[in-house]
């Protein structure tokens, strides 16, 4: 039998020198249709279907056209920003897994690479298959949503295009990034693992390194999340940046003027997506076919993988193990030896685990001990460098000329917090900061002693957050241990701080805040107290109320006391604080002109003031308002003394006046 037949050139052949393949594109689009269908269906539900329900469902009844248009815009843009992010994160990875799955099977790789098409052709065709799939679904959603909105007469093309930009832009980035990850592995399940790990790696390592450093660097509590770390954590960055904003309209009883913030971030990431696609193509060219099935397919990436897994294990699991075990066994501060031992142990576990994954063998110890030793040495050097503070973190006090704002929080008898811009006051706090750093060794020794319940020792804390002119910030937190005598000793940090907290400028910022001092208008006030029932059935809360005029008088008196240094006097002396500070808190309410609250009225706020017997102006003002007629303010010490008596012995203690009439104070 002669099987020879004349050759007829294939009419459907897309062979054009091994570049883009229409055949492969068509095969991809038909082969993975369930995935494209789920993606499309999800968008169709979130897009046109939800718009249809909003515009024609029961909730649309009775709404004006304007309100329907505003609600439709809000829903569409919210779905575009938040839905687009999650769709991108999830489907970006799934698309890449589907289209590049052939690289994870030696058989499939053999077939595809034996075909007359270049590696670049395969990559470009597969990549564009994914792009075509999601763009097709996005365009279909756009068209149907436009049809629904058009039918309802609320069509706004600008909002639709913003939705499209968000959905397609974020999908482009996450899909391209997942493709990039896929190029580095030959195992299907490693693609999502790499994808998730690399998406959160920067933020995770940043947090873990700061956690380690804060355990050993005096005063260091972490440097926050630098901008570059946020940019390297795409899902987080896009989630924070890309938001929908609107304005409340009382007239329409809904939010209007919807606008999307953070579109520039979407644009940057979309461009980064294209860059990742180009990088993925470069990796694809050097990736060898025989690595199908390997955990890591590129030689240098394998080394990175070993070190990366090891370091991440050391920083996360190592520190976790340390805090889990050491905190149970030891009291009195952190142990560098302990934490390094845990980190090295878990680092080695991670290193050998990575090696086992790479070699697909459990017999890796003998052949990879050198790398493990290098990682161990690196971890020890890292620990030593942090302990030795080679970057000078501990001693760093930002230069006065670099500081834009200093936010100070001080513990003690009364929590104080203030944002300071006054250069003179900032300089005084810098002086305190330097003094605290100078007493570092004493403080660390006292911290260890504090676990032994040293009766002679008290402690407080101070947090200094320098917001610098270059946009960065420096944040420090110190526990301050002191004896009562040191508060009066002019040379100590605690005495400097004690003096500083009485500064009028500091207390004005602490007690009054920016808005009240600059824009606020006092609208009323009240004074709380606790009354005790003569029958012995317990205590109950009551208060005296002040109208706007009376409250304004109290406010003026309060300011006078601040300026005369009557506030913050006993911040670090508990006994005197109890003896001199009233347990009756004064609350003043104020409104802020020009700022609307959610309900449409003026935004209201309040300040709560704990004052002492030293506040003579405020006491006088209270008496003037008649609030203290026949009443006696009680200090904490007095209250505690009365608390010690039996309820049956209770008697009327004071009556104070208020806007709602006299109030009887009963104490036992």
């Amino acid at each position, binding site marked *: 039998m002669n099987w020879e037949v004349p*050759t007829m050139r*294939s009419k459907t052949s897309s062979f054009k020198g091994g570049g883009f393949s*229409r055949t492969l594109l068509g095969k991809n689009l038909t082969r993975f249709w369930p995935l494209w269908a789920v993606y499309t269906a999800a968008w169709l539900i979130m897009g046109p279907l939800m718009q249809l329900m909003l515009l024609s469902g029961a909730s649309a009844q009775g709404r004006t056209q304007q309100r329907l248009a505003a609600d439709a815009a809000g829903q569409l843009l919210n779905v575009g920003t938040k839905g687009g992010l999650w769709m991108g994160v999830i489907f970006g990875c799934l698309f890449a897994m589907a289209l590049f799955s052939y690289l994870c099977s030696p058989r499939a790789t*053999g077939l595809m690479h034996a075909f*007359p098409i270049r590696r670049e052709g395969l990559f470009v065709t597969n990549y564009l298959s994914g792009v075509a799939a999601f763009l097709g679904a996005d365009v279909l959603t756009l068209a149907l949503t436009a049809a629904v909105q058009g039918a309802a007469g609320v069509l706004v093309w600008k909002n639709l295009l913003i939705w499209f930009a968000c959905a397609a832009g974020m999908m482009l980035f996450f899909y391209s990034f997942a493709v990039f990850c896929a190029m580095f592995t030959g195992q299907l399940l490693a693609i999502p693992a790499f994808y998730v790990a690399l998406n959160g790696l920067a933020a995770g390592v940043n947090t873990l390194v700061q956690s380690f450093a804060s355990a050993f660097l005096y005063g260091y509590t972490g440097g926050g999340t630098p901008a570059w770390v946020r940019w390297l954590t795409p899902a987080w960055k896009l989630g924070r940046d890309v938001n929908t904003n609107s304005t409340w309209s009382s007239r329409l009883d809904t939010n209007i003027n919807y606008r999307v913030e953070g579109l520039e971030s979407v644009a940057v990431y979309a461009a980064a997506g294209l860059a990742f696609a180009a990088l993925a193509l470069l990796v694809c060219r050097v990736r060898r*076919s025989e690595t199908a099935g390997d955990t890591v397919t590129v030689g240098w990436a394998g080394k990175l993988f070993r070190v990366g897994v090891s370091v991440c294990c050391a920083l996360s699991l190592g520190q976790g193990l340390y805090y889990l075990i050491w905190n149970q066994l030891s009291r009195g501060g952190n142990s560098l030896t302990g934490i390094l031992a845990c980190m090295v142990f878990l680092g080695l576990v991670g290193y050998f685990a990575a090696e086992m994954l790479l070699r697909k063998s459990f017999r890796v110890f003998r052949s990879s001990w050198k790398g493990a030793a290098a990682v161990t040495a690196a971890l020890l050097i890292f620990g030593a460098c942090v302990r030795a503070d080679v970057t000078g973190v501990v001693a760093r006090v930002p230069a006065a000329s670099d500081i834009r704002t200093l936010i100070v929080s001080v513990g003690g008898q009364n929590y104080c917090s203030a944002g300071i811009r006054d250069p003179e006051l900032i300089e005084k706090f810098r002086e305190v900061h330097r003094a605290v750093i100078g007493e570092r060794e004493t403080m660390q020794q006292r911290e260890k002693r504090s676990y032994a319940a040293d009766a002679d020792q008290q402690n407080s804390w101070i947090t200094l957050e320098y917001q610098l002119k270059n946009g960065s910030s420096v944040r420090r937190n110190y526990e301050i241990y002191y004896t009562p005598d040191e508060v009066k000793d002019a040379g100590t940090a605690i005495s400097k701080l004690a003096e500083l907290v009485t500064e009028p400028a500091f207390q004005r910022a602490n007690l009054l805040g920016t808005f009240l001092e600059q824009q606020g208008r006092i609208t009323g006030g009240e004074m709380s107290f606790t009354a005790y029932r003569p029958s012995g059935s317990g205590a109950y809360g009551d208060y005296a109320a002040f109208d706007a005029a009376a409250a304004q008088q109290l406010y003026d008196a309060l300011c006078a006391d601040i300026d005369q240094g009557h506030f913050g006097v006993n911040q670090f002396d508990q006994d005197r604080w109890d003896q001199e500070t009233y347990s009756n808190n004064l609350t003043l309410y104020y409104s802020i002109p020009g700022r609307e609250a959610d309900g449409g009225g003026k935004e209201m706020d309040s300040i709560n003031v704990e004052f002492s017997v030293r506040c003579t102006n405020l006491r006088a003002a209270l008496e003037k308002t008649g609030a203290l007629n026949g009443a006696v303010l009680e200090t904490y010490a007095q209250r505690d003394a009365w608390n010690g008596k039996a309820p049956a012995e209770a008697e009327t203690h004071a009556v104070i006046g208020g806007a709602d009439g006299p109030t009887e104070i009963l104490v036992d």
Partner: protein
Amino acid sequence: MIEVKNVVKRFDGFAALDGATLTVPKGGVYGLVGPNGAGKTTLLRHLTGIFRQDAGEILIGGEPVWENPALKARMAVIPDDWYYFLQATTADMMRFYRGFYPQFSMERYNRLREAFAIDEKKTIRRLSKGMQKQAAFWLTLSCMPDYLILDEPVDGLDPVMRRQVWSLVMGDVAERGTTVLVSSHNLRELEDVCDHVGIMDRGKVLLERSLAQLQDNMVKLQVVFPDGVTEVPPELPVLHASRIGRIHTLIMRMGAREAERLVAQYSPLLVDAVPLTLEEIFIYELGGADYAVKDIVL
């Protein structure tokens, strides 16, 4: 012509190919044989552009094969583990192959339907192993290749189908001058179809000759020595010797005449030269390379 010159390929330090060299003449049918792990499949994957060599050169028709789609469009391959898409039918895979191979012939595809009794609409994974192999042959031969690379091609086929596919391949060789490189452990079949043979071991091609040259280069002598000579004289260059009664069977790497001349010095009572089969040549050649059937006592 297919030329492989000093090709080296290492996997994690292990040299799967260690200076492999072979030449397949145009229009020839070259049988590549060797023990398991010799590097045959690795070499074929280089020839089909799947793997890239660390060193050396691979030329087909004078052109390098790596990332050469124009050349690969004239080649077709049937690997030992042919891949097809999970849900694909033979017809689906035909359309896929047709999209990649410009010379794909629908006329031949339709004609071959008679030879391969396969339901085109049935998913390939539902077919038996032998029928999957038939599907691979069907598609590959429809690509009208100038170069055909086959790795264990008839493994799983029944005897009738083996003859069928060899008939088709040999028809292509005869009619179209197709160059065929086939790797197989079935030496009996290779002996029937190959005109050249290469023997691989440990990443190297130990020898390659035409089948006739190979058979001329090694001889099996059956000898009866005179009384008193019970052992084979040690001076004789014998690859392998065995004895049944007084008849010694000697394998010698040389021509029959020279072997008979050497043995004649010992005045044998009987000398008879017998041609070796390819399987015997394979066994005795590799026996010299420390790869022989071991007498294992269990």
